[in-house]
């Protein structure tokens, strides 16, 4: 369990434009976001000595970005071969590296041309190797198809409805309308959600996140150092990563998962709250991984904001609106801001806790939750100002 409560902080954030067609190299996107995060922290590039990312071979490795930034001493440059499940984990392991003395200030980034370049789920060969030999030959190939299977099981178990899920999409879009960097800002109604075309039952188009070109980054360092930098530090109060006993052979694979009506969040909740010393009722704003609408519902249940099966009801009646009991995805999330694979949720949480979120600001936000993951494994953090 995470035992470094409040010893480390996020001191800077950076991001590029989010678009469907950047017209730029992934390396340039990464260098821009990382350079901005260091500058935002008020840290000279020469003082950054670590860099970490995660990707599916759709990005550039950390050493390349270190080279592009001109880091004179990249003591810790590492890549995780993984997906959104690692968007909080890279920050946690950056802290671990600093704690171990391997680095002092670490840039954590995600960069991709996710729409104009390599599209997730779109690049499969016809020869299906490894675990994929049991899925792709049946036309079970894309992430929406993978996760629709989980969503259906939640509906089977609890009677969750498509209309209930639609509330998540509508809420994220309403928040995105206040966010200049969001890719989709045009308001939508529940009716629009229901009328959007069916992609893979039970998912309509508006249950599914965006595909984006762009990059974002955060700068992690010790709380002590962060206090001497430009902004008020955002402390990493608690954190957890993990999943169930059968995390599968890859991120798609959940064929041995015991219960598809609940995901990784169920398994990390105790570690998360114990490490943070707070509980769900203490969260002022929650940036919840929303690759699909249902994943928000499943994480709210798993992390204990409501009981299993009550997530569909929980997201109704304005409870997750910006003026509700638990404002979620104040930037618009993956559904409406951009798909920067969950790291953009951390950027938003930092801005909220600094009081820098402009029109999107949740007044008095002191404790934020970020999550990253939707299926068998994932991570989460409790941040405070």
């Amino acid at each position, binding site marked *: 369990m995470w035992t470094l409560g409040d010893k480390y902080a996020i001191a800077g954030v950076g991001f590029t434009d989010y678009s469907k067609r950047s017209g730029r190299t992934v390396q340039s996107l990464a260098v821009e976001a990382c350079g901005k995060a260091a500058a935002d922290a008020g840290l000279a590039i020469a003082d950054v000595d670590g860099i970490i990312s995660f990707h599916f071979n759709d990005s550039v490795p950390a050493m390349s970005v270190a080279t592009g930034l001109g880091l004179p001493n990249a003591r810790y440059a590492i890549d995780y071969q993984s997906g959104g499940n690692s968007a909080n984990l890279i920050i946690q392991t950056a802290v671990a590296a600093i704690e171990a003395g391997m680095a002092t200030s670490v840039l954590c980034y995600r960069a991709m041309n996710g729409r104009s370049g390599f599209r997730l789920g779109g690049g*499969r060969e016809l020869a299906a*190797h*490894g*675990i994929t*030999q049991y899925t792709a030959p049946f036309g079970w*190939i894309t992430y929406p198809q993978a996760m629709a299977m989980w969503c259906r099981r939640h509906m*089977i178990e609890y009677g969750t409805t498509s209309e209930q899920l639609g509330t998540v999409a509508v809420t994220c879009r309403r928040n995105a309308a206040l966010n200049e960097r969001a890719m989709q800002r045009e308001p939508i109604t529940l009716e629009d959600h229901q009328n959007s*075309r069916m992609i*893979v*039952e039970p998912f309509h188009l508006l249950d599914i996140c965006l595909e984006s070109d762009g990059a974002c980054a955060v700068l992690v360092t010790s709380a002590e150092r962060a206090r001497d930098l430009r902004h008020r530090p955002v402390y990493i109060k608690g954190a957890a990563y993990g999943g169930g006993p059968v995390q599968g052979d890859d991120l798609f694979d959940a064929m041995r998962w015991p219960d598809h009506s609940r995901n990784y969040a169920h398994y990390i909740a105790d570690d998360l709250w114990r490490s943070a010393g707070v509980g769900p009722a203490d969260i002022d704003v929650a940036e919840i991984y929303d690759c699909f609408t249902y994943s928000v519902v499943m994480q709210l249940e798993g992390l204990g904001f409501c009981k299993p099966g009550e997530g569909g009801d929980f997201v109704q009646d304005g409870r997750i609106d910006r003026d509700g009991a638990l404002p979620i995805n104040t930037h618009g999330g993956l559904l409406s801001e951009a798909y920067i694979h969950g790291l953009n949720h951390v950027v938003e949480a930092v801005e909220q806790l600094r009081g820098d979120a402009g029109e999107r600001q949740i007044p008095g936000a002191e404790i934020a939750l970020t999550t990253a993951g939707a299926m068998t494994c994932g991570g989460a953090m409790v941040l405070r100002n």
Partner: protein
Amino acid sequence: MTAYQKPVPAPDADSAPFWRGCREHRLLLQQCKGCGKFRFPAAQFCPACRSDAAEWLEASGRGTVYSWIVVVHPVPGDIYRDDVPYAVALVDLEEGVRMPTNIIGCDPRYIRAGMAVTVTFDDVSAELTLPKFRPA
């Protein structure tokens, strides 16, 4: 005749007997000789007891639908355009394992959780047979 243009399994040292069984219209599963558990997907070591002693046994082919999806938007479009809507399901077999498959011989609108299904072998090409399921 045009070649089969959809994803095809690449059998490996663990899975080859499974796919060979399908070719012979037999649904084969590994049963661990250490603890007696059936396992799927195929693996050299039993995840329950780490034994590598196992035998391939023919499953009953009977199961129930655990969850399912209906693919409406084809991806890749050129490969699945003529197949949509099609159903992919996770089927719980009597032997205690869960298997991804297609439900055929039934309008996808009538698929329900817990529906009893039985294996049916689809010879999709001269080389490949896929184990699909239809209502029992």
